[in-house]
């Protein structure tokens, strides 16, 4: 089971806890995770990526296995640890302000 960690504002918007679990077929990618999140929680559409272009919103970051995946291709396969549920896929609001 893939574990996705959402920032607090998206937890309240989607009405979910900090961790959302997803079951996805291979290959598991950023795109397949975001597609599943938006399908299961339509309120999240447009909050992480543009609804039309699917481009990541500028102040959203994606981390996994201590690596920054934000600028990687959304179709790159994610690490095995994420696919196996041993490591979470982290969605964050970028640090800005004080």
């Amino acid at each position: 089971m893939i574990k996705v960690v959402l920032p607090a504002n998206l937890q309240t918007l989607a009405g979910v806890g900090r961790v959302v679990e997803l079951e996805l077929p291979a290959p598991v990618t950023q795109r397949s995770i975001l597609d599943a999140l938006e399908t299961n929680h339509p309120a999240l559409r447009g909050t992480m990526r543009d609804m039309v272009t699917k481009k990541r919103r500028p102040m959203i970051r994606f981390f996994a296995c201590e690596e920054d995946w934000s600028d990687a291709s959304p179709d790159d396969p994610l690490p095995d640890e994420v696919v196996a549920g041993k490591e979470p896929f982290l969605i964050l609001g970028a640090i800005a302000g004080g």
Partner: protein
Amino acid sequence: MSRVRVLVGTKKGAFILSADAKRKKWEVDGPYFEGWEIYHLKGSPADPDRLYASQSSGWFGQVMQRSNDGGKTWEAGGNQFMYEGTPGPHTWYDGSPHPWEFKRVWHLEPSRSDPDIVYAGVEDAALFKSTDGGQSWAELSALRTHESASGWAPGAGGLCLHTILIDPVNAERMFIAISAAGVFRTEDGGKSWKPTNRGLRSNTMPDQDAEVGHCVHRIAMHPSRPNVLFMQKHWDVMRTDNGGDSWREISGELPSDFGFVIDVHANEPDTIYVIPIKSDSHHFVPEGKLRVYRSRTGGDEWEALTNGLPQQDCYLNVYRDGMAVDALDPCGVYFGTSGGQVYASADAGDSWAPIVRDLPTVLSVEVQTLA
């Protein structure tokens, strides 16, 4: 017995304040959408339990919310605001062309007759309409493609369409205001628009009397007189008696004619309220005193209303959507501040008391008068 419901949008969530017609004891509900900026929420005149809210964030973008039970529960609606066609540029602060980009919904104006129809004024300036209760939005693009649009430039808050007034008799006739472009009027439900800014003068433009480019902060109308509009401009308080064809200044002896809010008494069409702000570089009230000014003569002559408001060491602002009136007699007047207070007067402004003192910065205040 009648009740009032005050809808408050803040920088960190929404609040709903409720009281009976005496307006002395208040219930405070919220925060709703905590952590999100709520630029505006407003109820449908046709169905007071239908509320719409604009929820936004610099990180997560625009979300639209709808309630069918007076704000007890909410559901996310459509949040796709697509400009029609390929939008051309508007003018940036430095005078250069800048691409038109959607940023947020500033103002929601539900139809007076159909709870599923609602208009949204957005930044970068455009007008959208939903006919399905906020599930989908279509741009009324004739406004943004007006021949003057390439010259529209943002005010300090952005190029925002912040006011929508629907003629209570003819719903095809509407006024909108954009900072900093000015007031536009449609007679055909948004198919065409005419700038209605004659008489405005703004020293921030090379041509002070230009037809378009004025930083209008707010306009207000009494429903019994759809041709009489009142305006708080960047500087100057203005009035028109002919639907915007010409304006005249009514600032009189106000301590400052800079400000954001303006509103009209619910039962006296010539009684209007403003809150003077020291200047565009200060953005707080003059002399450390929070004063509402009331004119009972439709402008020019003003009286300071101070009873119950702080008269020393006060340095607050009141944003453009931050004042509203109820429809009771005597009329209730409400406003929210940058310091998180929501003040209420149950006697048309003669005396004031805070409903709440410590909310996040208040962005908008609306009032519903419930049977």
